[in-house]
């Protein structure tokens, strides 16, 4: 019989006057995988952080194993056996795996002088449990995202966690690591560990979860057993109304080529060649590090071209800096919106207009009126939701932040747009908005390059898909006539092995 291991009742939380959680309540059984879904801003990350003690709730009660407890800080949570694995993985990249497990861990007996043998002995059983093969002494920074996530899970296990919260665990993983994760989750279930699985991804939730709780606008709308509910119903609970998925396939693509890469070689790319036509959406798939983002870097003049050419509207182009690229009508959306895109302390308005201030100014003085008008028009067309444009951009949800960056690109009215993983870590509603925008841009005749880790997204939105592997183009596929398996195979194996034994 499944017993309730964790119960939350009437949790409230206010940030800066905005109500983030209102009377949130739900409960988790031991040994179950409990999904937590909702749009961004619904409050799921906040709730997870409150359970983990990172943030303190303003009001409400907690019960662990039926007894009331208080959770005011991470120490309380750790003592109660609660552990959280963040989307961004709060590991120390310069330290070893074992050190990451031991730091701040009540289960590890700290002594004045740290003995490596002690660390190894402490870490090994948990590494085995999660299936990490590299050993306790390898540096975390040498691991892939998937490996790092296993380290994070091992750390939670080493804290004798009985409740593990996972916040968007697969957002940075490519498909094979995802499988590994699911297997691990299943194994943990068997051991009686309860897992709260925060995610946007419908198919994953249906795959691993036993029950799911949906949140909307800071409230818990309801909990359902996964066999008894449909994705349409979950979506209805998340956004509060009926909603239809739409195809984002662009209308027609012209035959006119706007951009060509011709044997382009940089430090990280080798002989990359492809064409982009007017009004076309060209997808770029591949593992992390295969050269997808590097195409953008080369296009924007950030990486030096060693060999080859870029041909723009028929003429060979010389792009030496980001400014030159922008002047040539190329804009881009960098991969990591927090590190590479936003100026977090500046306002929403300022972030949107920073690349195109000259046309909005008079002899160097920014015309607030003109700026406001231009930005609001663009924000409106992107369905950007905000309280006031003078608030710092950090107050927005991930999806809205991405829209601000998109505005920045589009304000300059570019001909070619390079989007690097634009829907990473954002919710369903905002994702659909972005797909709609991509469709619109294509129909306006812009050439779009779309890098993505989500294969279904690529198949949905693109005309053709470029598969990158190890810095070069492995294949060029027609999106209408290919499958996820084919793309994945091309991205991971050399051509001679395609079609051979898997």
């Amino acid at each position, binding site marked *: 019989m499944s017993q309730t291991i964790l119960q939350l009742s009437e949790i409230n939380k206010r*940030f*800066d*006057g*905005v*109500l983030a959680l209102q009377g949130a309540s739900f409960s988790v059984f031991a040994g179950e995988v409990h999904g937590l879904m909702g749009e961004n*801003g619904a409050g799921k990350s906040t709730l997870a952080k409150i359970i983990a003690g990172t*943030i303190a709730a303003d009001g409400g009660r907690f019960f662990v194993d039926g007894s009331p407890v208080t959770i005011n800080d991470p120490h309380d949570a750790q003592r109660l056996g609660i552990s959280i694995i963040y989307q961004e993985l709060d590991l120390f990249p310069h330290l070893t795996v074992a050190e990451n497990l031991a730091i701040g861990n009540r289960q590890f007996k700290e002594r004045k002088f740290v003995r490596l043998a002690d660390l190894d002995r402490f870490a090994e059983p948990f590494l085995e449990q999660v299936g990490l093969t590299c050993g306790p002494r390898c540096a975390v920074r040498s691991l892939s995202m998937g490996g790092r996530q296993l380290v994070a899970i091992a750390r939670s296990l080493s804290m004798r966690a009985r409740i593990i919260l996972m916040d968007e665990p697969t957002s940075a993983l490519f498909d094979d690591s995802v499988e590994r994760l699911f297997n691990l989750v299943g194994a943990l279930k068997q051991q009686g560990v309860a897992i709260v699985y925060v995610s946007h991804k419908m198919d994953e939730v249906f795959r691993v979860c036993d029950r799911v709780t949906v949140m909307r*606008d800071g409230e818990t709308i309801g909990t359902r057993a996964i066999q008894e509910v449909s994705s349409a119903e979950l979506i209805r609970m998340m956004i509060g109304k009926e909603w239809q998925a739409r195809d984002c396939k662009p209308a027609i693509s012209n035959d006119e080529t706007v951009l060509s890469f011709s044997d382009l070689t940089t430090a990280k790319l080798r002989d990359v060649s492809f064409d982009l036509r007017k009004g076309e959406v060209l997808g770029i798939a591949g593992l992390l590090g295969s050269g997808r983002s590097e195409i953008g870097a080369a296009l*924007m003049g*950030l990486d030096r071209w060693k060999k080859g050419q870029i041909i723009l509207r028929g003429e060979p182009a010389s792009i030496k*800096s*980001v*400014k030159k*690229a*922008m002047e040539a009508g190329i804009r*881009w959306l*960098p991969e990591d919106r927090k*590190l*590479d*895109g*936003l*100026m*977090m*302390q*500046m*306002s929403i308005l*300022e972030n949107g207009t*920073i*690349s195109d*201030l*000259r046309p909005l*100014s008079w002899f*160097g*003085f*920014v015309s607030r009126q003109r700026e406001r008008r231009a930005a609001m028009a663009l924000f409106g067309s992107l369905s950007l*939701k*905000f*309280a*006031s444009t*003078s*608030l*710092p951009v*950090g*107050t*927005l*949800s991930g999806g*809205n932040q991405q829209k601000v960056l998109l505005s*920045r690109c589009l304000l300059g009215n570019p001909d070619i747009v390079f989007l690097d993983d634009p829907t990473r870590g954002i919710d369903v509603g905002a994702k659909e908005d972005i797909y709609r925008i991509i469709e619109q841009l294509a129909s306006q005749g812009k050439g779009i390059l779309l890098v993505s880790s989500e294969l279904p997204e690529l198949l949905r939105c693109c005309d053709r898909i470029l598969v990158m592997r190890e810095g070069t183009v492995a294949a060029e596929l027609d999106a209408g006539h290919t499958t996820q398996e084919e793309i994945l195979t091309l991205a991971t194996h050399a051509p001679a092995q395609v079609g051979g034994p898997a």
Partner: protein
Amino acid sequence: MKSAAAGSAASFWRRISAQNRDVLKSVGALAAICILAVLLSPTAANGSYIFLQLGNLTDILRQVSLVGIISLAMNFVILTGGIDLSVGSILALSTTVVALVLTKWQPGLSYSIEITLAVLAALAVSTASGALSGAVIAVFDVQPFVVTLAGMIGIRGLAKWLSSNANVDVGFGQDVASTFAAIFRGKAVTIGCYVALAIVFAVLLSRTIFGRYVRAVGDNERAALYAGLPIRQVKLWVYSLSGLLAGFAGVLYAAENHQGNPNAGVGYELDAIAAVVIGGTQLSGGKGTILGTIVGTLMIGVLTNMLRLNNVDSNVEMMVKGGIILLAVAVQKQGKHVR
């Protein structure tokens, strides 16, 4: 996300940008210190508070003007995430150059032309010094702390070399040097320059493209690069402005003190940084206003004056100053949750 309810004062407080909120907090602190100064102020023979006498208040303004002018540009430098340790030495160089030109150069031109040229020479040399630091920082990507530290040492050496380590006296007579001093030393001139420059720089930061770029570069340099901003130019300009304003302060210093002094300005860079930091600008860059810097400058000025009117030992004065800086920064950190 729901937007906050409109209409009430509480929601107004929430809606104004975090930046303005910090400035209001600083102004409040300044007001508090002024009130304290009045309470502790000695009284004159006619019963009025000495602190509030117009003469005393303008004294304070004059006393903070030089460091205040330097702080304006230091604010810009710190906003880009950098720092300029060489401003004290540039001030010394500027005083030396202007005094040397006025006393040693006898071209027989009219006084106004000579004075103008001398001042321009000092400003040119100062701006060039700043530009040199800026170029090394922008082009070779060397850390500003290191580059301006080298500047601090080297530029003072240059000043000492130019004057053979002596002071260049500007007299009280009728010659061109004395006339220069008479014109520029007045309280009104000094305060006027500070106010004028403060307005210019406030407008520069809040209303111009350049001001936006400065904040963007300090906020997230990588993102600024990826957004196509001219990072190198911004940095070069910012350090050049720092040199220019230090030069300006140096010219005023030479007039006030009637001397070119290669040993002047020691520690001014730290006073400027203190004013900027108390005013709410963070050393990591991206966040700060000119009004905040002015408030920080005034806070130090009022505090020092309050202590001096009460004849507090100058060493205790320094300890109190240090304490205020810590307190000011701690108050700013208060109320900011970890994102």
